[in-house]
């Protein structure tokens, strides 16, 4: 098994944000995070310098499997409301971002926060680069309609 305490402290928020972007539910995102770091602990080898990519890739895979599961489809996305630790000044942004479909939310997070290139996002999400560009464009348009100009 590999040591994961260092990557955990370094990337826990990135994993959580991506999981939350997919699931929209803080409780589900926490479960995904736990599952992802357990998988990392049980890995035999991860190429040096690729820990973050591995974590985000595994998070995306885990979330996609969750969203495809019959359990999830039956219950639909859980809406746990705004997490307690979100500052009130970002409540509108939180609601606007979470109102997006996961496929738009995820690419917006990866592009504008994690600053991945569209090519890297395509590889991470197993979709084409043009699909990334389209989702970014549509996601931005949707956010523009609900948020003040200054946010975009």
């Amino acid at each position, binding site marked *: 098994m590999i040591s994961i*305490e260092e990557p955990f402290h370094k990337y*826990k928020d990135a994993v959580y944000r991506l999981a939350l972007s997919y699931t929209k539910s803080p409780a589900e995102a926490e479960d995904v995070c736990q599952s992802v770091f357990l998988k990392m602990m049980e890995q035999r*080898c991860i190429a040096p310098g690729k820990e973050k*990519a591995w974590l985000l890739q595994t998070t995306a895979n885990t979330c996609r499997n969750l969203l495809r599961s019959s359990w999830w489809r039956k219950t639909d996305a859980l809406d746990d409301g705004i997490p307690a630790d979100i500052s009130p000044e970002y409540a509108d*942004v939180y609601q606007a971002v979470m109102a997006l479909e996961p496929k738009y939310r995820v690419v917006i997070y990866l592009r504008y926060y994690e600053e991945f290139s569209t090519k890297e996002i395509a590889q991470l999400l*197993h979709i084409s680069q043009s699909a990334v560009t389209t989702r970014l464009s549509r996601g931005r348009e949707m956010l523009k309609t609900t948020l003040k100009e200054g946010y975009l």
Partner: protein
Amino acid sequence: MNNLTNFFDSVHMPKECEDRILNTISTPRRKFRPSAAVAAVVALVLVLGMSPTVRAAVEDWITTRFPGLDLTIQQRTTEEGIEEIIVSIDTEAPTFAYTENGRLYFTGNGENLDITDEITEEKPYFYTCEDDRGYEIYFVVGYDGTIENFGTYEFIRKDGQWFTGSGRNFLSSQVEGQAYPWVKVVWDTLNIPWPMPR
């Protein structure tokens, strides 16, 4: 996007979640808890010919999942050494290859490599890595000439001895029960000691 960035900046893993995960990953040995995702359990008698009894709630089980995500090994160790080993094949887990736009990609070990031009019907793609305890993991991706119909194999070897292996989609749908040509190449190339599937 500054405000959007600031917003994402304000999202953090909750402290109680962080503590729970830290507590879990700081514990080197965990109880064996059967996963609902484990679709098939194959018990192998690897050590001392002991009975491969599946015990669902025993202390001292160590669970190890290998990078291809197909294989999980649970082993119980006592003062006498390793007593039981259970190899689980998780058929629900995503495998380490996928296709997109007519291209075939390998994703084991955190990679994302376009291997389309590196394989033919009789030339599978091989990838190997080794962990810090000397386990060698061999990934193989092969296909029958149709990219979408790819198959995979994952083997584990230690100290020169093959430990176990797991494969998906290696039997031909054209000739019932017969392995694809790329599988024979795998067996010949790696000198696998077990009978080839057929």
